[in-house]
C-alpha cells in the first residue's frame, strides 16, 4: 500500500470508523462516495468493536508482504451492530476457532514495507478477554 493511501485510510483502519447515509441510514465500511439510494450525504459511524466469527480460513500461502505472519487466519466477523467485515483473527490457533467465537477488535501491525518503509497498523480481531 502506498504511503498516501495508508495515510488516507488511517482513521477507518485505526478506529473502525465508517459512514452512515443521511438519507436512508445505510452503513458503509469502508466508506463509499455514493449510497445505493443515490445520496452522497454521509455522517460518521463508529462500528462496534465486538462481534462473532461467522466463518474463517487459514492462509498458508500469503500474498507478498504477509509471509512473516503465516499461517494466519482471516475471518468473516459479524459485529454486534450487524455489520459484517473481513479481518485477521489473532491470538488463537486455527483449531481453537469455531463459528460463533466471540471476538473483539485490537490494534495490530498489518504489514511492514520492508525494513525501510512504513509500518502499517490497523484492526484485527481476537477472542474476547474477560
Amino acid at each position: 500500500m502506498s504511503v498516501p493511501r495508508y495515510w488516507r485510510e488511517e482513521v477507518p483502519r485505526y478506529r473502525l470508523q465508517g459512514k452512515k447515509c443521511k438519507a436512508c441510514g445505510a452503513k458503509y465500511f469502508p466508506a463509499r462516495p455514493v449510497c445505493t439510494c443515490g445520496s452522497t450525504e454521509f455522517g460518521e459511524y463508529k462500528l462496534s468493536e465486538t462481534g462473532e466469527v461467522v466463518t474463517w480460513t487459514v492462509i498458508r500461502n500469503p500474498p507478498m508482504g504477509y509471509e512473516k505472519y503465516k499461517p494466519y487466519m482471516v475471518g468473516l466477523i459479524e459485529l454486534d451492530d450487524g455489520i459484517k467485515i473481513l479481518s485477521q483473527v489473532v491470538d488463537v490457533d486455527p483449531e481453537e476457532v469455531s463459528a460463533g467465537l466471540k471476538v473483539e477488535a485490537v490494534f495490530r501491525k498489518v504489514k511492514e514495507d520492508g525494513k525501510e518503509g512504513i509500518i502499517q497498523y490497523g484492526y484485527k480481531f481476537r477472542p474476547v478477554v474477560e
Partner: protein
Amino acid sequence: MKTLRQVGIVGYGAYVPMYRLKASEVNRVWGGVGAPVEEKSVVALDEDTVTISVECAKQAVKRSKINPADIGAVYVGTESKPYAVKPSGTIVAEAIGATPNVSTADYEFACKAGTEAMQNCIGLVGSGMYKYAMAIGADTAQGKPADALEYTAACGGAAYIFAERSSETIAYVEASYSYVTDTPDFWRRAKQMYPRHGNRFTGAPAYFKHIIGAGKALLDEAGYKPEDFNWAVFHQPNVKFPINVSRMLGFTLDQINPGLVAGNVGNTYAGSTPVGLAAILDMAEPGDRIFAVSYGSGAGSDAFIFTVQDAIEDKRGGPKLSSYIERKKYVDYSTYLRHRGQIIQ
C-alpha cells in the same frame, strides 16, 4: 514536589501480550542454571510498542469515560520505538481519537521513561495547561541471546490519564519526586540491536541508590512512614531487587505482593512500574495509599504517592491485568526468536 492544583488519575489501562517463554527454556538452550523469574511475556508477530500502547490507551479512555478529543497530551515512554525517527505518540493519539489538538512525544529514559511521562503529565495538568494528559510506559525489551537479561527482557505496558483532582478521579497524586545522576549501568549505542550492562554494577550504585534516594526524599517531604501505606510498587527488573529494596526502605512483602508481577511477566522496562501500579489499582480500595518508585538506568527514579478515591469502584471495568497475565500460551525458544525478529532470513 507538589502541583499548583491537585492532580489525579481519571483512567488507566494495562496490557501484557499472551505469549510466554519459560526461564527453563532459556536454560535448556544455553545451559544455564537458576533464573531471576519463572517466565516472561513475548510479543505476538504483529505486536510492538505502539500496539501495546494503543491497547493500554484504549482501555484507559474507556474506563475514564472522557472524550478522547479532550486529551491534550499523549506521551509514550519506551526504549523500543518501532521507528527510529517518527513518534509513536502520533500513532497512539490517532488511534484513540485524540488528534489533532494534542501534544505528543516519545520519552526515553530506559525503564523510567513511562514514569517520566507520568511526572510530566502531572506537571502539565497541575499547571492548568491541559485538562487531560496521557502517559504511557510500554516496551518490547531487547535481551541479547545468552545474556543474563534474556531471562527477563519482556513486553507490556500501562497508560494513565491525568486530570484535575475531582470526584471523577480514581486516585489523586499527593506528591512526587525525581532523583537522577549520571550512572552508566546500562546502555544501548545507536544502531546496536542489544543493550550492554554493568552486571553487578547495576545493583548498589544504580538500582538501589536511586530508588532509595527518591523514596526516602519523598517520604521525608510528605511526612509519611512506610507503615502509612497500604501498597507499594518498585521497579521490578526481576523478583529479588524489588523485594530487597522494599525491605531497605521499611516496606513489607504484604505491601508489595499485589504489584509484584515480574515473576510471571518479566521486566517490561518502561512498563514495569506503571504495570505494577495497575495491578494494585485493580484491587485497591478507596482511601488506600500507594507508594510507587520507578528506576531507569542511566540513571534515575521517579517516586509517587497516590491516594485511591471512591470513583475507582466505577472505573476499573473490563479485563484486569490478571486476565492478561493468566491468558498465556507458551512458546519454545525458536518460536520466541521468530516473534522477536531475531532469525536472519
